[in-house]
């Protein structure tokens, strides 16, 4: 059939219409939830910073913000990525497009149910972590279950598509690295969603009275087998997107296929132990020192090693691409002469840098047995996960969107100059906010999920934090506003492009979005030096080590506790 598929003028991939429609539907839905989450963020931010809204409104909107951003925006976008990686990158028709649409419908229905349950009344909602014995309404739990089932079906379609591509020999050689990363991510997603069902299905039965009670300790323990791994899906997806962007923007390929794949395998083996970090300040006894040492130490750090490898390989890919294009002078010309006018490139660089320095290091620090005493449930934790999923994942996905618009929607991104500014506005805003959150949490102990640090709802034991706290809250507020402006600009650019962007012909696509090829013939790309990356990584390691030790030094001044 002539209309069943087209060949992408830029990448040469076969793009099947069915896949294209599914990618569009999932990506657009993702952006809608990004918008909802952004509106909720305004309420959250103005309450924390200025105490503008009542606590109950704050709790309601923080739940709306969390579910919209952390789950719906990111997972709808990830499903779009899976359809792309499975069908487009492997030149195969989607296995079960109807199932893929069913998955989309289930996810959408679930998401709408959850959002409606949160919005209906502040008393119906729970905070983002809905720990029993706090009880939500039945539709909240049913919504989460429907969404999870839908996501599982979508992941199943991905596996079936990869299997079909392999059987039909639709691609040559091993899986491309990006698909390999997406595959590992999909395996993690299955485990995560099944564990999610282990807590949200009983919670649903409890909410309708079929189960008398839930053990809060066991529930939270199992919940984190879903709560943290759901963010490890983001990690895997983000890194896959980084490799893809390095290739699309500068023609970069990893310094070593073998090592990059090993890093993904390390994730597969160990990353879900990230959930154990949520048990560092639990009533002990159940979790002995030995258990924590092995699991949150050696084993979890194998996954961190995976991240350290990507920390080298992703910038290394960019350096290889750039040097092959002829930006080969000195140590850093490759970076200085990057295609900075391309918002996808600046998104990539900012996302990697912010994720690494702010999100990654703090994840290891906050997850360290004793250091968690200072971090647990303070605003520093908000700093950590905004560093990871906002400055990292969201910014990377925004970067990829600047390719999805021309290559999938076949429209020219409107207002290129604003688009070039957008990642900076967003990235710097989030970065500033994250650093302020960490200071507020670790140094000043500001609790998370606390809407009124000014008067504590007129509590008789109300006290006053030192003035630095209010200065830092202002810094966080201004950073947050910048990020919101960057996010709003992104949504405006996407909506504007999808609705009114000029349609692109194949010739124009080839001219404007061609993947850079080596200027001369520099030989095998992997032999090109990565010494700039090496120096950047040494700086990163020095920063990481300093922060790690500084946190222990800070802890040493606290009241002694424990045996």
């Amino acid at each position: 059939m002539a209309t069943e598929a087209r060949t992408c003028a830029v990448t040469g991939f076969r793009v099947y219409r069915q896949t294209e429609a599914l990618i569009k539907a999932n990506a657009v839905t993702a952006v809608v939830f990004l918008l909802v989450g952004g509106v909720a963020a305004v309420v959250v931010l103005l309450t924390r910073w200025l105490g503008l809204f009542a606590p109950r409104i704050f709790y309601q909107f923080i739940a709306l913000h969390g579910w919209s951003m952390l789950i719906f925006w990111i997972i709808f976008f990830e499903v779009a990525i899976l359809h792309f990686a499975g069908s487009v990158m492997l030149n195969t028709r989607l296995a079960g497009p109807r199932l893929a649409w069913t998955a989309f419908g289930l996810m959408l229905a679930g998401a709408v149910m959850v959002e409606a349950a949160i919005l209906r009344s502040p008393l119906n909602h729970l905070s983002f972590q809905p720990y029993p014995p706090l009880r939500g309404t039945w539709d909240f739990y049913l919504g989460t279950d429907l969404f999870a089932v839908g996501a599982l079906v979508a992941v199943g379609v991905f596996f079936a598509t990869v299997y079909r591509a392999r059987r039909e020999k639709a691609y040559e050689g091993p899986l491309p690295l990006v698909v390999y990363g997406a595959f590992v991510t999909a395996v993690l997603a299955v485990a995560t969603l099944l564990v999610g069902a282990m807590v949200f299905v009983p919670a649903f039965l409890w909410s309708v009275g079929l189960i008398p009670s839930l053990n809060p300790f066991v529930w939270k323990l199992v919940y984190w087998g879903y709560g943290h791994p759901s963010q490890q899906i983001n990690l895997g997806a983000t890194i896959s997107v980084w490799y893809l962007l390095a290739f699309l923007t500068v023609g970069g390929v990893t310094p070593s296929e073998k090592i990059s794949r090993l890093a993904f395998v390390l994730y597969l083996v160990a990353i879900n132990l990230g959930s154990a970090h949520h048990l560092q300040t639990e009533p002990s006894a159940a979790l002995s020192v030995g258990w924590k040492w092995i699991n949150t130490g050696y084993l979890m750090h194998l996954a961190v090693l995976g991240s350290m490898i990507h920390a080298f390989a992703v910038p290394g890919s960019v350096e290889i691409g750039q040097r092959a294009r002829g930006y080969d002078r000195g140590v850093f010309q490759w970076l200085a002469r990057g295609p900075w006018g391309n918002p996808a490139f600046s998104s990539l660089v900012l996302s990697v840098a912010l994720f690494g320095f702010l999100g990654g290091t703090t994840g290891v620090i906050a997850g360290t047995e004793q250091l968690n005493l200072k971090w647990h449930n303070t605003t520093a934790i908000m700093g950590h996960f905004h560093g990871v999923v906002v400055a990292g994942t969201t910014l990377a996905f925004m970067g990829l969107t600047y390719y999805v618009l021309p290559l999938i929607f076949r429209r020219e991104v409107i207002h290129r100059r604003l688009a070039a500014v957008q990642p900076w506005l967003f990235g710097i805003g989030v970065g500033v906010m994250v650093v302020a959150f960490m200071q507020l949490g670790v140094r000043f102990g500001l609790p998370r999920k606390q809407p009124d640090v000014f008067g504590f709802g007129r509590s008789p034991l109300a006290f006053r934090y030192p003035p630095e706290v209010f200065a830092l809250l202002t810094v966080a507020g201004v950073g947050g506003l910048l990020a919101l402006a960057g996010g709003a600009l992104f949504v405006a650019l996407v909506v504007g492009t999808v609705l009114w962007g000029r349609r692109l012909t194949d010739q124009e696509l080839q001219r404007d979005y061609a993947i850079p090829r080596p200027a001369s013939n520099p030989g095998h790309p992997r032999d090109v030096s990565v010494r700039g990356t090496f120096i950047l990584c040494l700086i990163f390691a020095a920063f990481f080590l300093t922060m790690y030790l500084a946190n222990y030094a800070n802890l040493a001044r606290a009241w002694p506790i424990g045996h």
Partner: protein
Amino acid sequence: MAVAPERVYWHERVSRLERIWVTLAVVMVVVFFSAMMLVWHAVGRQNTEGQAFRVDPAAYRAQVEAFARQYRVGEEAGRPVVEPPPGGDVYMYATRFAFYPILRLRAGVRYTLHIASLDYLHGFSITHPHQWNLQLYPGYEWVLPFQPTRPGVYNLACNEFCGIGHEFMLGKIIVVER
């Protein structure tokens, strides 16, 4: 498509710089960072190792109230201020939306803290001046030694969402000269 590797990528040579980086990462993250957790148990004074027991919330509440009656020295904001013998056991419970009672302790003295939630999940945070944070569950009693360092007023806040009114949930530990 260049995004795919050559056929047999595992025979590829890994560049020297990448080999150095991976080695460095193994030494720093896997070896040193992991070892540090155990080292701190030996040399550090802030660890979470203690004991935990399942308790009946009503019985635990009665125990804390008996403790508060026995060592009561005053009252603030409707809550007893309690000064136990230096070096002894101190009992506290968390409930929506208060930490009970208010403690008066001696600086530099090691006490044994008993703390449990009576109803929902709560966060026990010595927030200002910031010391550390513990997670509480209904029906589970933590028992941990601890030692206030300097005199002053230490404010407690709940840092786990426990319902509407959570923002209201505070407590206090007063530390006086030895």
